[in-house]
């Protein structure tokens, strides 16, 4: 799906609820998202990079649907027509200390029930 950049959205007029927080992790408001669209951010990836919404603790689990609704409305399209932002690891927020601690699960090791690791070596 190509993004039509020639679209004239007109001025960004204030709307009810503009001061409402949409992305609670990064504290981004509806007004900021609308303004970003008028500044030329037409895709979810651009919005994410520009405002950081959906890049906080919940990784957009709560707000991505709300954000795409706002962006689509501003562009006058259906939310389904917007390409969703890309999905990357880690799927859940992860402390760098854990990310850096890569372990080997030996072949054939039995998984234990509580919390996994039996004879994994670290």
């Amino acid at each position, binding site marked *: 799906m190509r993004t039509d950049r020639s679209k004239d959205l007109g001025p960004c007029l204030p709307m009810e*609820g503009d001061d409402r927080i949409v992305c609670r992790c990064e504290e981004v408001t509806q007004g900021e998202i609308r303004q970003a669209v008028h500044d030329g951010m037409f895709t979810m990836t651009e919005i994410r990079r520009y405002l950081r919404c959906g890049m906080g603790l919940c990784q957009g689990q709560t707000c991505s649907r709300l954000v795409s609704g706002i962006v689509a409305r501003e562009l006058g399209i259906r939310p389904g027509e917007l390409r969703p932002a890309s*999905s990357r690891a880690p799927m859940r927020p992860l402390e760098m200390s*854990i990310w850096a601690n890569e372990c080997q*699960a030996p072949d054939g090791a039995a998984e234990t029930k509580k919390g996994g*690791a039996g004879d994994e070596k670290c």
Partner: protein
Amino acid sequence: MKRVDLIVIGAGPSGLSAAIEAAKTGMSVLVFDENARPGGQLFKQIHKFFGSKEHKAKIRGFVIGQQLLKEAEDAGVQVSLESTVIGIYPEREVVVRKYVETPAADGTDPQEPSSRHEAVFHYKADAILVATGASENMVMFDGWTLPGVMGAGAAQTLMNLHGVRPGKRVLMLGSGNVGLVVSFQLLQAGCQVAALVDAAPKIGGYGVHAAKVARCGVPFYLSHTIKKVEGTNHVTGVTIAEVDSHFQFIPGTEKHFDVDTVCVAVGLSPMSQLLKMAGCEMDNSGKGGGQIPVVDAAGQTSVPGIFAAGDVAGIEEASSAMIEGRMAGIRIAEYLGYETKEAGEAEFSKEEASLEGLRQGMFAPQNRGMKIEKTEEGIPISTNLLKHGFVADDEIGRFPGVTHKAGIHPVMECTQNIPCNPCQDACAKHCIHIGLNITALPAVEEGSTCIGCGMCVASCSGQAIFLVNEHTKEGCAEVTLPYEFLPLPKAGDEGFGMSRSGKPVCRAKVVKVRTSKAFDHTALLTIEVPEDMAMKARFYRSRLECTGGDSVIAQSRIKGAEVSQNGATGDRPCESKAAAESEKREEGAAI
């Protein structure tokens, strides 16, 4: 790097079912789930499920979960908990965050037996099944970020997994099955439900679920939505208002409720990010509730060896998630050569037929958004049920489950075509007929004789069956109803008979309370009511609940209760004098 035949991500109903099928063929199967307990959503579902026997109907969700875990263990499935999959990489490499247990150095320090820390592990499998389920949707209104506003599923987790009441007085937004089921469970946990609100003009979930909530006195506000949640540090109140057909607020229709909790049940979104990361082709049209992978009937995605099943492949329910899981498990075993094509196909088509059976009736995916005016039997549907959550007195008589007869007989107030039939199986006397088509309305079998055993009442997943004896003695009738609240009333207790809308309509005396293992925690309450209330009284409230304390009923219905108390004379609830009074009272209560 550890290698297995199949890695399943998510130990919910679909993931476990797939793992069981695959392991039965001799495959090595490893299941990861980020929670400390397996079972996914199932362990929060304390209600009895719909469907028919093959779908585990009338069994409570968490019991189905326990059965699945036992089956998984017997089949040799390994389940690794507190293990979060953070990525799927090329060549089916799965990266997991989980704990490493370091045993105590030499066991000398009893205070520090062992320590745990988290690390990242890499696994590889010949097939991967993503069964990660879904997450709750939110809607925005002023105050939606205040503590006390939460998803209905979150409230359910608090109550049913952690034993914590989410609040004292709750407003529920969303009238789908999740909103209805959680509202009832909030009442069971001892919370008050101030109102059930939905922006749509009609109730989205099953009528029998709505009726359960309505007869407890919870008012429904359709074509209404939240305007604003009030409070500074936490929720202290909420204002709702009516919306027009374009979902715009109608000025002057605001209603305020003092509540400390607002639950939101406005749908679920598939958690499909792992599939997208793995390069699977995705469908973003919104038909599965959000972004879903493009899959075939067995859940095979566009990437060979990667499968998806359950809510992540399109929001449905646990019953269908289990079947989808089994179908994926069978196909994966075939794909890796653990099962012959013929044997696999035979099992596969059996499951496919069972899934087809669930996807029938008024709520079937193909009927979504359609305006249904008549049942499959050609009976006009109850419009009151869709608007107010209960079938009106002048509508109930037209359904085949509702008949009049001398002596005790079952009354099935089940008026929509839903895939469900445990009532038919429950009656050894063949009093209840549904037939082969499980979405047909339950009907009273002509010429049958009910012995009042109560099995049908207890096994009805929708708590929609009552036993009625319209004339026991001069001016008296008896109604037996399903009751799932604690403390249980006792024989001899006196209180009020409540209408389908949750209003007190007459005095009632508890004559019998039956509990039994076969009833599976549904108590059967038999109340004596005036004769003319036999087809109207559908719930019981003690006098205390109606007049004292801070119960829902006391708050919302106190007026009606006062009328009843003052109006009733004599000791016996069903004396003809009281019966005459009650008629008047009902008129009063209806206003």
